[in-house]
Structure formats: C-alpha cells, structure tokens
C-alpha cells in the first residue's frame, strides 16, 4: 500500500501492520471475519468505519407498529389450532369454556349441535369460536342403529360404547330413544375413567 493511499483511506493500515496481518493464524483470521460480519454498532453510535449508524435497529420483529398485524394473525392461528384442529370431546371443550356449563338453555334442544354445548348458534358462533361439526346430527345415531338392525335380523340388545358423560347427555338419550323406537334394548358399556 502506497503512502498516498494510506493517507486517504479510513481503514488503511501501515506497512508494519500489513506484515503482522500476514502472521495472523488461519483460525484468528476466521474469527476476525466472523466478527466483521456479525458485529453491533459501537457504543458511540458509529460504525467501525466511523460512519454514523443507529444503535437500536428497527425491524419488523422489533417494531410493534410493523409486527402488530403479524402478532394478531399468529394469535388467531393459535386459537384456531387449539379450538378447531384438535378433535374435541365435549368434556375437553367444557374444560376450556366452563361458562357453557352454566347455560343449560344451550342444551335444551336435543337435536342440534348447540345441545352438545359447543356453540350458542351454528350460524353465528360468537366469541372466538368456529369450526366444522364432525359429530353430525344426532339423527345419525339412529341411522347407525338402523344399519345394525338391518345387518342383524336377530338383534335384540345393543351395547353403546361410551364414556359416562356421553351416555348421560343428549347423545345417550338419542341412543335410548332410537333403540326404544326400533324395539331393541340398549345397554351402556361405559367406564368411569374411559
């Protein structure tokens, strides 16, 4: 490096320093390179080249104004995953939303999803809830029993494999009613800790 270049260069090094740089081991050079790429601004608010920089960088991940829409999206997704992606049993749902237990009016209609305590209204669920009804209408229980009876002409007693809450709520009532209509007996095969 010539003297004139050294005089105008902000990062220029003397000839003596050039010689010592050559003696720097490969490991140390590698460490220096890493430090060159990943370094924070100096406390004085200037870069290693002496240029002014902002000590606190504002990016989408650190700026609340920029990241707020993203946060809202993630929160909604989290709720969606918690409430909709897992197949929920009624007991599980009630443990999340205990207030539904205190609204017996939601259970008054035995032939709808509302009766299971899942939502106040299917058309407009309210709160932060929506989803797909995977259980189907209670009529499907009757149709299932009809299929069993069709497949087994000698059928007299049908077992219902369920947990106690299922046997005692509207689904169990639908099973008992369907069996009664078809002239069969129904026996619950439930367990306390199913």
């Amino acid at each position: 490096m010539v003297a004139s270049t050294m005089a105008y260069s902000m990062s220029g090094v003397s000839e003596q320093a050039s010689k010592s740089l050559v003696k720097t081991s490969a490991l140390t050079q590698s460490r220096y390179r890493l430090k060159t790429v990943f370094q924070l601004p100096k406390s004085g608010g200037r870069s290693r080249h002496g240029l002014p920089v902002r000590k606190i960088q504002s990016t989408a991940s650190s700026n609340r104004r920029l990241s707020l829409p993203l946060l809202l999206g993630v929160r909604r997704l989290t709720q969606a995953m918690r409430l909709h992606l897992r197949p929920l049993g009624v007991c599980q749902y009630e443990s999340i939303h205990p207030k539904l237990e205190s609204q017996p009016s939601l259970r008054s209609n035995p032939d709808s999803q509302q009766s299971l305590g899942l939502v106040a209204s299917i058309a407009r669920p309210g709160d932060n809830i929506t989803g797909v009804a995977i259980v189907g209408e209670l009529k499907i229980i009757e149709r299932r029993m009809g299929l069993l009876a069709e497949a087994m002409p000698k059928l007299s007693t049908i077992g219902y494999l369920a947990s106690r809450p299922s046997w005692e709520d509207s689904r169990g009532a639908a099973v008992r009613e369907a069996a009664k209509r078809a002239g069969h007996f129904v026996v619950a095969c439930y367990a306390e800790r199913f």
Partner: protein
Amino acid sequence: MLSVFNEAEYQRAFSMEHDCTNALNVSDEPEHITRRATVVELAAQDRIPTIYLFLDFVDLGGLMARSIDRADVDRRFANLIDKILRGSNPGDIPFYQHTNVRWSSISKTAKALDPRNASDAARPRR
C-alpha cells in the same frame, strides 16, 4: 384428557358388554380414534358386530361405519384458518355442518362375523 381413554378401560368395557349384548354401537366421541386399533381388535376378539363412528375403524378391519369424510373435514379446517388469517372474526364464521355421510363396511370382517346369523351362542365365552 386423552390419557384416560386407556386400553385397560376398553378391555373392562368389552368384558362388561360381552355377557349382555349382541351388537355394539361405538359412540361418536372423537377420543375413540386414538385407540381405534384397540377397539377394533377387542371387537374382533369378542366376535361382536360393531358399527363405528368413523371410516378409519373400517380401514383397520372394523365391520362397518357410517360417517363423514374426515379428509373433507381437514380441507374445511384449512379454509377456516385461511379466512381467520385474512382477518375474519372466527365468531362470525358459521359452523360447517356436514350433510354428506358415507357408509362403509368390510366384507372380510362381515364374512367372519356373519351378522345375519349372529347370536350370543356363536360368540366365545370368556
């Protein structure tokens, strides 16, 4: 919650039904899906004609099921999540209720159980 749906409880429930029923209807609690292999196996051991809540049970050798298509349910879930991420309020999106129900049965299991002539006498005693 799901941990309480354990194998021992299923075995106990099947031993309860063995003496008093000649067919079984599995309730539509989704928790059964996690133990579907156990349920199908116990029903096969007991030689009891059983109708299940989802078609997955039939895939494992269960006798028959009348149910919605779960793959379609997953697609509906994806649509819902898309709507929510685009800014819709979940509470304003109506619940989707399936109207197309599929019925499926497995002839191999039906042949083994022969439900047309099934009676308690044909089932092995415990």
